[in-house]
């Protein structure tokens, strides 16, 4: 029997629990697929597809001949010629231009009134009408192109009239706007990548999710938590081992996703529209660093939520709701662009979001910002950890039935 009372060495419980949970979950196909395949790879693949579609559409619109139905083309042959020179292909007139635009038969319809010729010869201002639907974002490039062509034709003709009357064209335009766009190729990319930080957070989330459910709600549902707690080890040590297993899985998930982004980043034709994209080692290592405290925070939060649930299924429901929380800062930042203040870096999720966007923009993150981000998130992670430990102490946690 057991004459000597053994003391479990402090580290061993942690390592024992950790190794057992890792081993057990490496044998679970669903967890593996979610943590190492669908979770981390869905983001990059989806991203490249969306980007390629958006980019190639933008590129197409800028260069391709643009068919535009023109009503009354015969009244203004010179204008139509000018449009043709700009790549517009005048099409057959449509009966109802408003209807045609609304039904998306045409992006834009040009109507020239029948008194165009008469007014033009008199030197009176004439009006041409452009029909379009600004809620069709897809058509905006076409609308801008036609507008630009018509306006520049107008200016050109106006200048010629002034010259004919012996005046300098500059008389009519006392003020000129010179546009100086300060966007760098990288910052232009940022607009498209606003959701990238969310992808990273979701990957961490998905990577650890099944473990978090399995290790708390699942263990309770399978009635193995009660025998486990009958062992002579403190519950918080068991919890720490479990959290470590969850964190390792979610970190692995994040690593896979970062590598995948670095690889697919090569295939995004960003430079074609004047963007620059660096998803390489520098970017990946900084993202990893910023996300590390978040890994622990999410593991603790997921375990906490799962501990409230009575069953695996219930935990799944709660945790999918929790998944919406990381969406908040991403959505906030993409809808209302705010100027980043130092304190914002200390807020978990928001800090990571700002930091990653800054990395994408090519500005780099300062040591101070990294420090704030790590400290803030780590503090939140510790709070969540303490709360979960407290929850693990409760009598009801172990009781399955």
């Amino acid at each position: 029997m057991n004459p000597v009372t053994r003391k479990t060495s402090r580290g061993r419980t942690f390592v024992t629990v950790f190794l057992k949970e890792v081993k057990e979950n490496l044998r679970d196909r669903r967890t593996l697929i979610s943590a190492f395949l669908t979770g981390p790879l869905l983001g990059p693949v989806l991203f490249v597809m969306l980007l390629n579609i958006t980019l190639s559409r933008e590129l197409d619109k800028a260069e391709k001949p643009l068919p535009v139905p023109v009503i009354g083309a015969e009244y203004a042959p010179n204008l139509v010629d000018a449009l043709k020179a700009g790549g517009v292909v005048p099409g057959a007139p449509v009966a109802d231009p408003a209807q045609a635009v609304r039904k998306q038969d045409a992006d834009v319809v040009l109507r020239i009134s029948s008194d165009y010729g008469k007014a033009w010869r008199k030197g009176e201002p004439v009006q041409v009408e452009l029909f379009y639907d600004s809620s069709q974002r897809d058509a905006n490039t076409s609308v801008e192109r036609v507008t630009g062509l018509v306006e520049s034709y107008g200016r050109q003709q106006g200048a010629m009239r002034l010259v004919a009357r012996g005046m300098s064209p500059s008389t009519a335009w006392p003020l000129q706007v010179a546009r100086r766009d300060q966007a760098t190729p990288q910052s232009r990319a940022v607009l498209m990548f606003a959701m990238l930080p969310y992808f990273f957070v979701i990957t961490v989330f998905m990577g650890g999710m099944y473990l978090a459910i399995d290790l708390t709600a699942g263990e309770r549902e399978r009635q193995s938590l009660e025998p486990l707690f009958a062992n002579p080890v403190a519950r918080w040590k068991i919890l720490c081992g479990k959290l470590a297993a969850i964190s390792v899985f979610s970190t692995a998930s994040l690593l896979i996703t970062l590598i995948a982004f670095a690889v697919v980043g090569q295939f995004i034709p960003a430079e074609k529209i004047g963007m620059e994209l660096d998803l390489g080692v520098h970017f990946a290592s900084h993202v990893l660093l910023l996300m590390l405290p978040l890994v622990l925070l999410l593991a603790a939060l997921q375990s906490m939520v799962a501990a409230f649930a009575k069953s695996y299924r219930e935990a799944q429901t709660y945790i999918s709701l929790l998944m919406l929380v990381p969406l908040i800062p991403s959505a906030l930042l993409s809808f209302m662009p705010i100027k980043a203040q130092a304190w914002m870096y200390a807020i978990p999720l928001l800090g990571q979001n700002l930091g990653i966007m800054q990395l994408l923009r090519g500005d780099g993150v300062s040591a101070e910002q990294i420090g704030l981000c790590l400290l803030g998130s780590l503090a939140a992670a510790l709070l969540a950890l303490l709360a979960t430990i407290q929850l693990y102490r409760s009598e009801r946690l172990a009781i399955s039935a």
Partner: protein
Amino acid sequence: MIEVRNLHKAFGTVKAVDGVSFVARDGEITGLLGPNGAGKTTTLRMLYTLMTPDSGQVLVDGIDAATDPLAVRRELGVLPDARGLYKRLTARENIDYFGRLHGLPEDLLASRRDALIHALEMDDIAGRRTEGFSQGQRVKTAIARALVHDPRNVILDEPTNGLDVMATRALRQFMHKLKSEGRCVLFSSHIMQEVAALCDRIVVIAHGRVVADESPDALRAQTGEHSLEDAFVKIIGTDEGLAA
């Protein structure tokens, strides 16, 4: 030795355990008998410190469960009401996990584990994942897991629940073996024949209270009934829930 002194535990307004006291001695099998819902499982849960009593005291080999729960759990081998195994681990890995949590050195763990696997006649299933185990195989694995650290005191909550005749017989023999090794064996049951066949001492619980604490013979003598079944019914006051 396990001593229980005046335990109380209430859930809301329901008094699950209402003043339970008894002693389970080394080298004896003590049976906790009572109908369903009498408070057996709650009492046992307080013994292995899963629950804290509202009042009362639990002593295991003289150690107070309230002051040093870890030491108490170290002295106990527990087969709880919940017998969940890790289905993606083999039976052997299930046993090893608990052995390591008890802090057993690897060589001692291996010899203890193999001895238990042999004693419980589960050599053929030890290397299999526990998913798909029969009820009997599951109970065997759970018992091996509970005893891998060689505890002096063994608590079994309804150990024969769901077992067939052969498995039940094997388990009874195993409990006799534990007793002959000088251990304190405490088990709960709602089946009187089982308790009668196994126990040196019977603690009858009804409505959260101890209504009898005797040897089987003394119990018969006390009630004046010839059969134990009649004796039990007389003690509990009703035959409700006391299934054969």
